[in-house]
């Protein structure tokens, strides 16, 4: 699989101050999350990939195109939704999107058609002839997403896409991002402070700390690997139920109030647990796949001295 983004000893400095410190890595996921505390270098990494900052040393490649020598060709494949409020004054929504599409190289007619489509898709169809200045914060976020995809990019950079959104608007934004991800013809790099956003949308996560890569983790694999760890809460359970589970080959650990943790071996399915519970007249009140949450991964990465990887 061709890497989406390759980091090759990428170092970025502002004056004498190093911001990104010799980053190396190859990102291949459909949706890559970029996490890190404030000042970790997330936005600088995105800005460098977009060509806004020149690398001090090393380089990065987007779909194999070097950002030092083929920045313009690389940007043909990109869509970018900035973190801050960004729009062009005095324009209606659809006019703004048409301009953005034309600047990306679409002929005027196609640009107009796609501007309308993108506005309808993000749910702003009825507001597309309104001046951008009159949009609410949530609408501006949606308009920013629309301008990022209007030209049909292959890689989308989303910088804090749920910033300032109320819960329904956030849910809508996440749903749109998931929809884009699931189509499979567009890859995502999502930078966020919100672990939940990254967890819901991404299958790979790159954690930055102090300009270094602190952790790189394939969430999809993590989820698969942890599928066999279970947490149960039972009522009416007794030693017989635990012994029956152990006879299936599960390792168990029991806790007060009917709680237990278990590791299921290959070949054992959850419905077998339900069958045993039914036989022993035990109620399974709660069943969770226990895995390292993104929060655990993030906190571990933050605790590691000097970055990590």
């Amino acid at each position, binding site marked *: 699989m061709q890497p989406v983004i390759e980091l090759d000893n990428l170092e970025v400095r502002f004056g004498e101050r190093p911001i990104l410190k010799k980053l190396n890595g190859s990102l291949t996921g459909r949706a890559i999350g970029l996490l890190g505390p404030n000042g970790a270098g997330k936005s600088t990494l995105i800005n460098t990939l977009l*060509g806004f900052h020149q690398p001090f040393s090393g380089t990065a490649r987007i779909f194999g195109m070097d950002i030092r020598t083929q920045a313009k*060709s690389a940007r043909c494949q990109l869509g970018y939704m900035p973190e801050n*409020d*960004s729009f*062009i004054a005095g324009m209606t929504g659809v006019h703004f999107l048409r301009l953005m599409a034309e*600047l990306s190289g679409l002929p005027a007619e*196609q640009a107009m058609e796609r501007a309308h489509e993108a506005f309808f898709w993000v749910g702003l169809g009825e507001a597309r002839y309104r001046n951008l200045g009159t949009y609410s914060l949530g609408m501006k976020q949606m308009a920013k997403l629309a301008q990022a995809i209007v030209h*049909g990019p292959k890689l989308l950079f989303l910088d804090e896409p749920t910033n300032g959104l109320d819960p329904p608007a956030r849910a809508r934004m996440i749903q749109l991002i998931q929809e884009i991800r699931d189509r499979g013809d567009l890859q995502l790099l999502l930078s966020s402070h919100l672990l939940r956003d990254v967890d819901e949308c991404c299958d790979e996560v790159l954690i930055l700390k102090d300009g270094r890569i602190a952790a790189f983790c394939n969430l999809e694999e993590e989820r698969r690997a942890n599928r066999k760890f279970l947490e149960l809460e039972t009522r009416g359970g007794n030693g017989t139920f635990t012994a029956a589970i152990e006879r299936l080959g599960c390792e168990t650990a029991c806790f007060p109030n009917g709680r237990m943790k278990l590791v299921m071996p290959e070949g054992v399915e959850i419905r077998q647990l339900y069958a045993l519970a039914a036989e022993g007249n035990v109620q399974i009140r709660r069943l969770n796949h226990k895995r390292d949450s993104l929060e655990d991964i993030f906190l571990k990465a933050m605790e590691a001295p000097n970055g990590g990887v």
Partner: protein
Amino acid sequence: MAVYKQTYRGYDGPSTPAWSRFLILPRYAFEEKRRSKFFTMFFLVTMLAPLIFALIIYVEHNLSALKMLRAGQGDLIPINAQFFQNLLGWQSMMAFFLAAFVGPGLVSPDLANNALPLYLARPFSRAEYVLGKMSVLLILMSVMTWIPGLLLFVLQGSLEGGAWVAQNLYIARALFFGAWIWILLLSLLSLALSAWVKWKPLAGGLLFGVFFVAAGFAGAINAILRTQWGNLLNLSHLIGAVWGSLFDQPMHRGTGAVFFRVHGEETPIWCCWVALLVISAFCLYLLSRKIRGAEVVR
């Protein structure tokens, strides 16, 4: 695809040539300016002077009109280098007002609304952005200055004959290059000021300030130090001197529009050229500092 389908789809259709994309910016700017009644009126008013000049050329070559005015050919207003210099001076003054009106609205709103990352995250460079924004002024000011100037030259040449054209070809050259020097300087200055001052009215005011305050300052230096070198700060003096050399006619009182008259001693022409180049380079430097996808905090 119909909009009701409301789904995301990629794009694999044709693309426009990369070299032509900077022209998208002036197209959108003109669309916006067209909606302004004040701008349309102003632009039409700026066309009055070329019409009057065309009328003068016509009358100068119309025997019945001359007979009616009891004048001979060339007695009314001679059609020579000074005639065209006057036209260029007047139209350039109007171009200055246009730059003060249009220029500040080009870059400052993009900076105030953080729009630059949206432009520059696309296959669109900083140079193309500046060129695109500058084209708005370049096109408008060209329509006001050298294009009517050359049309009048062609009119005069067609009425006067090939010999006049051959003898006065330097006027056409001076009109073209003289106008472009002014247009480029004015465009760079208004864009640079617009990039540094995010508030539109202030940016427009600053353009006036650069011309009038600098001219006053130059005059004060000349008077106090009893020198002529203060003129290097006076943009209208510099342009006037360069035009004088191009038209082979000094821009003294009574020549050209009031903006471009050269008072007192003339500054060596090469110094004027150097000063104009330095000012332009400084404007480009200011633009390169401000036109960035992301601001760097060192």
